[in-house]
């Protein structure tokens, strides 16, 4: 699945001007906690989130996220959009909720790129 296909499946709207919609997505990941994203997302995933602040873009950039999908029709503030444009991270808005978006994409064959982390402390 590429970004173009994904936009069709979730009736999405591309908010950023960034190109590269034929880029292949390896899988999906849904979360509102950026630390959870940083902890367990694998590279080249699409990030589904309800969070709209610029930190979403920074998180995406650090974790090599292919695109960000903002659920529930959220419109991000201008700082988020300009940062996304500057860092070439595509931002997509969809009218559907998180559960619906996950379901649609999973049905369409998109894999989960959420790496389980053990609940216990594995820190050194």
């Amino acid at each position, binding site marked *: 699945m590429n970004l173009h296909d994904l936009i069709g499946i979730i009736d999405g709207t591309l908010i950023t*001007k960034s*190109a590269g919609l034929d880029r292949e997505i390896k899988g999906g990941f849904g979360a509102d906690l*950026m630390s959870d994203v940083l902890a367990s997302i694998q590279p080249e995933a699409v990030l589904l989130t309800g969070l709209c602040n610029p930190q979403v873009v*920074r998180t995406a*950039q*650090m*974790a090599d996220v292919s695109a960000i999908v903002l659920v529930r029709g959220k419109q991000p503030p201008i700082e988020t959009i300009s940062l996304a444009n500057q860092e070439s991270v595509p931002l997509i808005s969809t009218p559907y909720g998180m559960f619906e978006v996950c379901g649609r994409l999973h049905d369409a064959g998109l894999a989960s790129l959420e790496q389980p982390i053990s609940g216990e*402390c*594995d*820190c050194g």
Partner: protein
Amino acid sequence: MDQLHNIQSRAITDQEAQNITRLEELAYELRVNEVMTADLKALSPETPMVDALELFRSAKISGAPVISNGKLVGIISLEDLIRYLTNGGANSTVENFMSRNLITVRSTEPVVEALKLFVDTRHGRLPVMNEEGHPIGILTKGDITMGLLKALQRDYQIEELRTYRASHLFEDIVSDRTSLILRYTIKQGDFTQGGTASSRIKRALLRLGANPLIARRCGIATYEAEMNLIIHTEHGGIIRVEIEPHQITIEAYDDGPGIQDIDQAMRPGYSTASEEIRELGFGAGMGLVNISRCVDNMKLESTWGKGTRLRMKLFLQKPEGTPADKEIKA
């Protein structure tokens, strides 16, 4: 290019506005004088058509402006030459066959304006005028295509060159131990800028030729540390990154308030962050846990009332005796 033309030929819909590519951006950024042919092959109205024919053949052109006393008075195209060859007299001059319907473009206009003219007028070439209204060049669709391609290549080469220069830094400079130190001042409470330092560090590592997975681990660890400085300190702090060929050492330090119970702070899910911070997607008590998962070595020291110093190391070449299974995958 076809897509570009179509978009310019009518009002842009929202759907199309979303699909603006780098190429289209360039059509707005590049000026006509950056892509035009400045070596002007011009004719004068009195030139015999035989000479015009010879010029077209020898210079391999398909059109030329007609200039009289520094002013543009017409344009001659291949079609005009064909008309001359079919029914022109031996004494015909350029004046008899040139087209006087002049559509010109100003040299300082963006290329996209010229593209609109090509679509609207179906002309094959446009004379380019300077601010004083004198012809200084000629522009064809081919010139625009070449100009856009060159600009795209330039974009690409600039980043290539930066990466090349940076990645040879350690080879070009000889010392017993070379290191590159990057320092960033992080302001307390500055959420909008949060992640800027980490983003720059990650980019620097990639330019230095670091493995993308190492750059990613480093970026994630530094980002968490940067957010901690923004969220939990009184006056912000410093991030210092030392890059050496065999390792990356990152230090994040501040002057307070410090961590009261380090063991508790290291426990997944433990957080002292406010509700406001949680709404930003942070403060889930995973920051230090994430850091420890991303780096090969981590040391956290803190004195309540004095400050905190977090030291992280990533090994680029495994030091002797490090068990392979200790490597933490990000």
